[in-house]
């Protein structure tokens, strides 16, 4: 028997297999955090963005659904009950003191109250909300097209991105949380279905879903659709803002272009 020779071939092969597998996995984990390798992986995002921008016309619309398709249990995600003091104060009196400030690289910085926004021409759409986690819900949103606001303030020619600053701090690490923010390129910012919604499923936008105002960007993933929007800024680039990647989740490794 082989055991007598002090050499167990089957056991050896099994151990070699496990050891080899462990080394490969550990190697992959090391690659996952190596700068040069991440830079290489991240290049796929430009390819995806360029390709999708090429096949996606400016007027191509995300599918709109019927009332019957609306999710009865639309899942709120990320911040669902912000505890930031400024936000709690605004929410305490029904956001009457809340103002949406739009500035940056614009001709005429302006601000709007919720009543002002509600008085503007609105768009209502029943759309799919695709979470980066893989699930999706369908909801009805009513709000002001972002383009209407951008037209009023007048973008300066050097403006290339629209940045959304939010009221909520999303706790991530022990080192402390960071305020949520997001950004869009002009093709998506000016798209007909890109709206700032104040109503959901026919009622006032609930706090869990971003009251008083949330962004809808129907051709991208859910994390692009900033909730609790306080301020909007037109910029030439976003590298100086927070982590420099254009959004809260983008600063944590997610794609800035979230059409996939």
């Amino acid at each position, binding site marked *: 028997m082989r055991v007598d020779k002090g050499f167990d071939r089957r056991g050896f092969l099994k151990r070699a297999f496990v050891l080899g*597998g462990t080394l490969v*996995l550990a190697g*992959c*984990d090391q690659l*996952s955090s190596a700068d040069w390798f*991440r830079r*290489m*992986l*991240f*290049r*796929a*995002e430009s*390819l*995806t963005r360029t390709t*999708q921008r090429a*096949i*996606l*016309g400016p007027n*191509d*619309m*995300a*599918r709109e*659904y019927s009332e019957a*398709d609306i*999710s009865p*249990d639309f*899942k709120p995600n990320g911040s669902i009950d912000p505890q930031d003091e400024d936000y709690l104060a605004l929410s305490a009196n029904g956001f009457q003191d809340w103002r949406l400030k739009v500035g940056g690289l614009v001709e005429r910085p302006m601000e709007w109250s919720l009543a002002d926004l509600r008085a503007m021409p609105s768009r209502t759409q029943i759309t*799919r909300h*695709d*979470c*980066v*986690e*893989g*699930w*999706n*819900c*369908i909801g009805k949103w009513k709000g002001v097209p972002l383009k209407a606001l951008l037209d009023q303030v007048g973008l300066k020619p050097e403006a290339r991105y629209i940045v959304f600053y939010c009221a909520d701090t999303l706790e991530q690490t022990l080192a402390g949380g960071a305020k949520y923010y997001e950004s869009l390129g002009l093709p998506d910012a000016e798209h007909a279905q890109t709206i700032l919604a104040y109503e959901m499923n026919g009622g006032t936008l609930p706090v869990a879903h971003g009251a008083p105002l949330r962004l809808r960007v*129907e*051709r*991208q*993933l859910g994390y692009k659709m900033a909730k609790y929007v306080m301020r909007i800024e037109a910029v030439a680039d976003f590298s100086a803002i927070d982590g420099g990647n254009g959004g809260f*989740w983008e600063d*944590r*490794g*997610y*794609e800035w272009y*979230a*059409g*996939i």
Partner: protein
Amino acid sequence: MSAISEEGVPRRQLIYRHRLVVRVTHWINVLCITVLLMSGMQIFNAHPALYLGQRSHFDSPVLAMRQAPDTDDNPVGVTTILGHDFTTTGVLGVSRENGASVERGFPSWATLPSFQDLATGRRWHFFFAWLFVANGLVYLAWSLASGHLRELVPNRDQLRHIGASIWEHMRLKFPRGDEARHYNVLQKLAYFGIALVVLPLLVLAGLAMSPGIDAAFPWLVDILGGRQTARTIHFVCATLVVLFILVHLAMVLISGVFNNLRSMITGNYVIQPEEKSDAR
């Protein structure tokens, strides 16, 4: 090789079996599919449940992996498939990560990266998805132009004798002599099915999960039955790929691992002489 010593007179024939494009695209595929499966499981773990239709019906998943409620002291992993619960502690639903039992869909050793990190899993997945699609297009274009594709289509005669071929494979008897020069009927069906049906469907279902693609080609998600059905199809196709790989590897091992590996590296393959009727 044993056949030489048994037969006395070696009548082995060396043939050129796999052409360069097939060999190169095969090994690029090995890399891509390994990474795609493992990073795919990482992505799945972000929400380890599947649904049918246009949206997630959270209370009626067709498949779900989770920790059973109230089992924090001694976590129990449960996998639900079409309403049936299975205890899968240690592998699905609950498995060990850094020495502790934690709730996660697929276990740490199967995912890329091993720790929970959806963002990095997506980066791996999409980079290698591009490489996989480019590699697949090269293979398909070359196969079409060179006539290789026709070698994957079984003829009527082969299909008529499929029963005999299955029986031979079950007894682990593989074609020798002239028959071994070409793919047999089971190989043709397996390769045709995986390369021209399962993998393209897997890619289309993956694309249908992209909100950008859905705005450009709304028909895609419609013909697949809605975005959540597309996600389920993507998962089922990936499972079929895993099954294919298991059978493929078993066949490679059983039917002469050295000869098979050499043929996929150098292209050269040794054909064993046909057995004589009194051989065994």
